[in-house]
């Protein structure tokens, strides 16, 4: 029998919100199990229950043949550790302090920290690549470093079972690959059992021995990745058509969701610049981020800004949107310096969808979208026919019209993101800047948002500038790429001309193979993979790769 299993568990928040219903699952020992599924399918909830953080309504979680809720916490914590999602550290605590806390279950009042604890801490720091940053306060780390600090804490716990909730979120490709390699290593070399929840299907394919696909609180499929990750199953789980590319040489399958919009292989030529920055330097009080950035963003096109963590993508977007005053350089909107226009006038020409906005409790979707109309209103003229029409149009375009009377905080991640997008659309600006609109979304919702972005630029001629995490999505949807590293623009132009193996290595620090995307002919980046590929999906038979030579082959 497996060490860890769930026996017909029902999990609910409160009395009526059942998230997982009568689910049974055996976690294979000494293997890597990846749980995938759309937003709100109950995967994180299940993980929390497996870690004893959530008591099941019915059924039980069994650890080593005993009901986990009968075991003392400390006993559980010596066998099993959990990396939570979006953990927050107390202020000013250093990385080493944080990692040391992982040793808590091995200590007691009469057993002060021992040499063994110190050894475990050192080892955890080294494995997570945090030894050099050990004395840095956690709140000063970048998102990627912070994630690794928390992974180090989990490792210091030295448990045979590791549960990881979205360990690759917030990380750029290089760090993602590092974390995945670490997971692999922990399993292969130390024989640890790993369960991870991931929203990127490709990470599941890359790292796991067993994939568990969930939907609506149920397990839809469980098995080895090459069997589970078929186009049919992915479509059933995520409700979006997917292409699966299987490398013939022992590689794991690569899935690409396919949206309604399929941008052509050749990017449309860039015309006039809608937004232009000249020799821009910008940053926060003592920390310069952008250095001498000159960039031109074509009108009516989709431009994607990509780059590793902390390269200044969001800072560039904020400086363009006039939220941050540059130390040097000028930003032009339609050839006019942005700081010359009034707040209101500027907000009618450019909208920014920022990251991590808060929603006041009880605010309805319609009320949130109406906020986008602010630049057209005065305190004495708070509403007009045009406001009403713009709000309706934005809600229809983003598909939240049926949710208009729902409170925003009751929406799922994907719905919420679309509501925010509707707010930015209601601003009815020719230029739209989006900061990581796909983070936290499952692949179906990611594709939905990107399709919408593409359609906005094509059917309404809007200029869209979008910061994206996922290089492949950027390649697929953008007419123009702006690649950044260390606060500078290192390359700009159509994806096919910009993205190749050297660029991925130089900018993201990861070895990869770049092939033409079988669906569009645009570049497709396969991190650390062999060179020969074949199509798994029949559907793609007719879509011939469009003649671009394989780069770096």
């Amino acid at each position, binding site marked *: 029998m497996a060490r860890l299993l769930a026996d017909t568990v029902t999990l609910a928040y409160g009395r009526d919100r059942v998230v997982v219903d009568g689910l049974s699952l055996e976690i294979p020992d000494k293997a890597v199990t990846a749980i995938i599924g759309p937003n709100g399918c109950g995967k994180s909830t299940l993980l929390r229950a497996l870690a004893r953080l959530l008591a099941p309504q019915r059924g039980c979680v069994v650890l080593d043949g005993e009901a986990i809720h009968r075991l003392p916490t400390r006993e559980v914590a010596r066998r099993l550790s959990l990396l939570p999602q979006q953990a927050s550290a107390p202020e000013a605590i250093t990385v080493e302090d944080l990692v040391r806390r992982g040793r808590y279950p091995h200590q007691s009042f009469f057993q002060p920290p021992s040499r063994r604890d110190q050894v475990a801490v050192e080892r955890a720091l080294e494995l997570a690549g945090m030894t050099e940053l050990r004395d840095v306060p956690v709140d000063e780390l970048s998102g990627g470093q912070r994630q690794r600090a928390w992974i180090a804490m989990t490792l210091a716990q030295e448990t045979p079972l590791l549960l990881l909730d979205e360990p690759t979120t917030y990380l750029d490709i290089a760090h993602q690959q590092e974390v995945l390699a670490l997971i692999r290593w922990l399993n292969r070399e130390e024989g640890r059992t790993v369960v991870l929840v991931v929203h990127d299907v490709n990470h599941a394919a890359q790292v796991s021995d067993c994939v568990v696909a969930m939907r609506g609180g149920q397990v839809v499929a469980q098995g080895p990745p090459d069997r589970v990750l078929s186009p049919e199953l992915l479509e059933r789980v995520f409700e979006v058509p997917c292409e699966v590319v299987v490398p013939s040489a022992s590689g794991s399958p690569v899935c690409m969701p396919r949206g309604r919009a399929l941008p052509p292989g050749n990017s449309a030529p860039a015309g006039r610049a809608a937004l232009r920055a000249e020799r821009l330097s910008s940053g926060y009080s003592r920390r310069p981020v952008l250095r001498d950035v000159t960039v031109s963003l074509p009108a009516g096109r989709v431009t994607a800004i990509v780059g590793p963590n902390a390269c200044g993508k969001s800072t560039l977007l904020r400086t363009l949107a006039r939220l941050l005053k540059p130390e040097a350089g000028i930003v032009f909107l339609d050839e006019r310096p942005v700081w010359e226009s009034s*707040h209101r006038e500027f907000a009618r020409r450019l909208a*920014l969808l*920022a990251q991590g906005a*808060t929603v006041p409790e*009880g605010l309805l979707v319609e009320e949130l979208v109406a906020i986008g109309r602010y630049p057209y209103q005065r305190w004495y003229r*708070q*509403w007009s026919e045009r406001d009403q029409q713009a709000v309706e149009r934005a809600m229809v375009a983003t598909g939240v019209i049926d949710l208009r009377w729902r409170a925003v905080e009751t929406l799922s991640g994907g719905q919420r993101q679309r509501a925010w997008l509707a707010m930015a659309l209601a601003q009815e600006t020719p230029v739209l800047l989006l900061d990581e609109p796909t983070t936290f979304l499952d692949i179906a919702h990611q594709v939905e948002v990107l399709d919408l972005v593409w359609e906005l630029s094509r059917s309404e001629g809007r200029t869209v500038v979008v910061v994206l995490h996922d290089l492949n999505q950027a390649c697929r949807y953008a007419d123009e790429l702006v690649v950044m590293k260390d606060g500078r623009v290192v390359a700009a132009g159509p994806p096919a001309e910009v993205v190749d193996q050297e660029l991925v290595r130089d900018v993201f620090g990861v070895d990869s193979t770049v092939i033409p995307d079988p669906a569009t002919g645009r570049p497709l980046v396969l991190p650390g993979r062999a060179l020969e590929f074949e199509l798994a999906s029949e559907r793609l038979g007719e879509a011939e790769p469009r003649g671009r030579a394989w780069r770096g082959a």
Partner: protein
Amino acid sequence: MVRALVSSQTERRPRLRVVRVGGVAFRVDASVLAMTGLALAALLALSAWALTLGSYRLPLAAVIAALSGSGSDEAQFIVLDLRLPRILAAVLIGPMLAMSGAIFQGLVRNPLVSPDVIGVNAGAAFVAVFWITTRHSPAALPLVAFAGAVVAASIVYLLSWRGHIAGPRLILVGIGVNAALSAATSFMVVRAEINDASRAVLWMTGSVYASTWNDVRTLALALAVLGPVGIALMWSLRVIQAGDLVARSVGMPLERVRLSLILVGCGLSAVAVSVAGPIGFVALMVPHLARMLAGPMCGSVFAFTGVLGALLLLGADMVGQHALPVGLPVGVVTAAVGAPYFLYLLYRVNARL
């Protein structure tokens, strides 16, 4: 009842109506307007009832007669000079405190903020106690208390200014200033003559006892000016609640709007405190109640907050004056009734999460 309050929020379905008069157009939720009307009617009834209560009982007919000037001299004196000013003071102070609380809570996006937490009221109390214990003329008390509130607010604002105002810093600085001022006030009370000290302590509890028509005029003027300005500013506060970045990206001159909101919030609170002393918990509690009943803060909900504040303060004063064997200042009642009720509400709301 609380469950009804809470569920009415999650299932809120606003009946939005657009009111247009020439170039002026507002979009309001008809259900909030209805609630406000209902609360106003209740307030009117409660006030009428309050006029009949007292050691000298007057039937409602006699009260109406006295109001219209046709009652006996005695009844007229009791109604017009003793009871009416006190009731009107409560009815005006309640909205001012509640609205001030709503402004600060929205501005800082933190439900724990109110002028009694971030030192505005403590500033007024400090100066007022100084004034009382040094035996200056009581006539000028409201004015100096107002000055104290504004000075305290300015200190908090200046100390938390780092190129812009950040919510958490404002709270922390406010709590610090509040503690310092309260300590200084206690020190003065301890050092004062016993008679002065007891007067100072009575003032510090907060009461509408012995309010005069002069007080009512001051309060009415302040509310008539600041109330509408507050309602107009709610249009922007609604946006600020979604975050500073959002506010700035939809083209709001954020610092200017924020400064106006702080000035209005301080003004409302300071005038109320200068007349009645620091009455606790109204500013903290009433905006919560209003939001639970009517949804997130906006112009109409702000007005509703005001009416609820009036209801609550008048009710508390009536309880303190008539329902208990000893007359208590209204500040004691709001603290004794308000604090546990507030905890209860918080508990019920949290229990749902």
